[in-house]
């Protein structure tokens, strides 16, 4: 494969000095397995949420903040930029690679910022849903601590609240987990470490970033369906 790291690179062999040579294709396979494992994590939580959501009546309408569309657009765009970086390095275009990688990093951070804004928005929306419930049912008790609220009315709101934060925070944690190696790759690209034949870091980030994208779209679809 073209993008595979080559054993000639001195960086790699030194790292394994005294041990073995860098194994062609091992890193790509490793990151693919990790992404597969994490996909199962996302899928199973989505399935669990849908099972739960199915068992309670869907009466509260909470509108998702429109900022979600913005963050979605940013994330999808960042997927394009990292793909651009990969194409650029395969043609040995160092400058383009650096720009594309930096753009991805900035877009990733922007995505997290937008998500913070969305979290604040949905918090407000659920507060007003709380008020509405209180007005409708005088016996409704506001949740305190969450552990001992047995009133049936609460859990629906609780569940939507929990689902939104659970999935977005879970995804955001994976974005943070991707931004750190992306930062490292950015720094390495500035030192011209990567070449047309040797760019494992970019390749791994590419696979991971596409996974983040796919996971986010699945989450968004689930939230759109269940919040109606």
């Amino acid at each position, binding site marked *: 494969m073209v993008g595979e790291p080559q054993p000639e690179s001195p960086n790699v062999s030194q790292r394994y000095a005294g041990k073995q040579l860098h194994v062609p294709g091992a890193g790509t396979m490793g990151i693919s397995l990790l992404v597969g494992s994490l996909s199962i994590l996302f899928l199973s939580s989505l399935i669990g949420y849908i099972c739960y959501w199915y*068992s*309670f*009546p869907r*009466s509260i309408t909470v509108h998702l903040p429109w900022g979600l569309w913005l963050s979605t657009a940013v994330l999808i765009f960042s997927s394009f930029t990292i793909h651009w970086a990969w194409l650029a390095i395969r043609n040995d275009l160092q400058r383009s690679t650096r720009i594309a990688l930096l753009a991805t990093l900035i877009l990733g951070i922007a995505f997290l910022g937008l998500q913070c804004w969305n979290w604040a928005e949905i918090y407000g929306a659920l507060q007003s849903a709380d008020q509405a419930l209180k007005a409708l049912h005088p*016996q409704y008790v506001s949740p305190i601590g969450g*552990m*001992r609220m*047995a009133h*049936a009315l609460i859990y629906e709101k609780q569940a939507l609240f929990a689902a939104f934060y659970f999935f977005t925070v879970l995804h955001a944690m994976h974005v943070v987990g991707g931004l750190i190696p992306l930062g490292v790759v950015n720094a390495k690209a500035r030192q011209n470490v990567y070449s047309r034949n040797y760019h494992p870091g970019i390749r791994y980030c590419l696979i991971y970033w596409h996974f983040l994208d796919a996971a986010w779209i699945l989450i968004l679809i689930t939230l759109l369906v269940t919040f109606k």
Partner: protein
Amino acid sequence: MSVTTISQILGHMNFGHTLAALWLPHGESTFSPPVQFLWDFWYWMSVFFTLLIVGLVVFFSIRYRYTKNRTIADHSPSHNNPLEITWTAIPLIIVMVMFALGFKTYMNMDSPPANSYNIHVIAQKWSWTFVYENGAISNTLYLPVNKPVKLNMTSKDVLHGFWIPDLSIQRDVVPGRVMTTWVEATHPGKYVLQCAEYCGDGHSEMRANVVVEAYPKFQRQILAAANIFEEDGKPLPLATVGKKLYTTLGCLGCHSVDGSKGTGPTWKDLAGSKEVLANGRTVSVNYAFLKTMITHPGRVLIKGFPAGVMPSYGSRFTGKNVKNLYAVVWYINSLSKYANKASEPPVPNLPKGSEPASSSKSGSAAATPATATAGAKAPAAAATAVAKVPAGPKPVPLHVLGAKLYTSLGCIGCHTVNGQPGVGPTWKNLAGYPQKLTNGKTVIADYQFLRTMIIDPGKLDVVGVPAGVMPTMYKYQLSGKKHPHETKLNALIWYINTLSNRSSKATQPPVPDVPAAK
């Protein structure tokens, strides 16, 4: 509290049985023969294969052992596909036979016959309570012989496992839903019910006796069990009744009566003493304090005892069941040397005279301030567990029948009657109040609404009520071809009406509460 006797132990050691029968208990229900048959099949199959494999291991180890003259294996092939297929196919056939046999019996276990007697099983940490069709409550499970019994099971707190080895039935009791199983015992006898699903501190002691008797004897038993406030027609001192409740309601799991440490505070010398609260204040343990601790355990926290451990007994001590509260508090008083007027309940320990525990007497109880609940509307025949099936010419009001059905049909497992939250909506102030549907509409809980909710719960989705939890079986028990007059259904709705202060013509059933005298 074992019911085991020496004869039972000897019964297990009966050498007349086959080797296989030494394993499973001698089953005494209609499920037992097929279960035993499959067990025997598996058992002898396993004995055969285990002996074969052990035999081959030992034989090969000796016959083909390594010696000085024999240091390498004899020539023999290292693969043989027909052989592989053979020893794949034989186990496959055996397990498929086992699957088919097991599945057939299991489907039978899963479908209770229509003519079953219904018993509601309430599991909680760490006791079992059984509610019979006549409203009787007991801690011993009485079962009739040769009559199918359907067990509707609910849990008040965590998972429990309903497990009677001798009757070959087991079912987990999952909180938040009604679990069902059924059994038809074939021999009279005494057996043990054990909790099979781990449930905390007292799990290993969460047992109940199971008594299987001939049907007439069974009926007498549950009639006697129905009234805990009397013995031989004479009223018992409330403290004695409280002592019974201490066991039957499971208080003994956490509260000792001898001063030893338990999950909750000991009851010895509790009444009239001083307690330090979690917030540092010191209070004296008077009647009002005890009442709060029993009915609303979360409201006041005693130092050293964390919140959330004491189950909410809710309706078992309030409303029409307030006499239980008096009984337990009298019992707590009887254990304390500090007991005083302030710690005693507002009713005397020994009921006056020999009048039977029926309407007139609990009228006096209703007069006390503690019973200012909607339940007081229901005449006192429904009080506690008094369930003498009214005989004779005097017609019974439908709502009284409804109150009994409330326990016997198992509504009690999910719906409270005092406004406390439960799995389903509380029945207090339900009739006549607006209900919000999930489709956004708001409807008044009138007769039609209540009827639909009971017999066809899937039709309407009410906000806050989880779908699919309410059983659908009531349609067949209360309505349909077999019940053209829907008497029981009307009785339930009448009962719900008595619990609401907005009961009106629209919310009441189309038949009068008190049937016209014949």
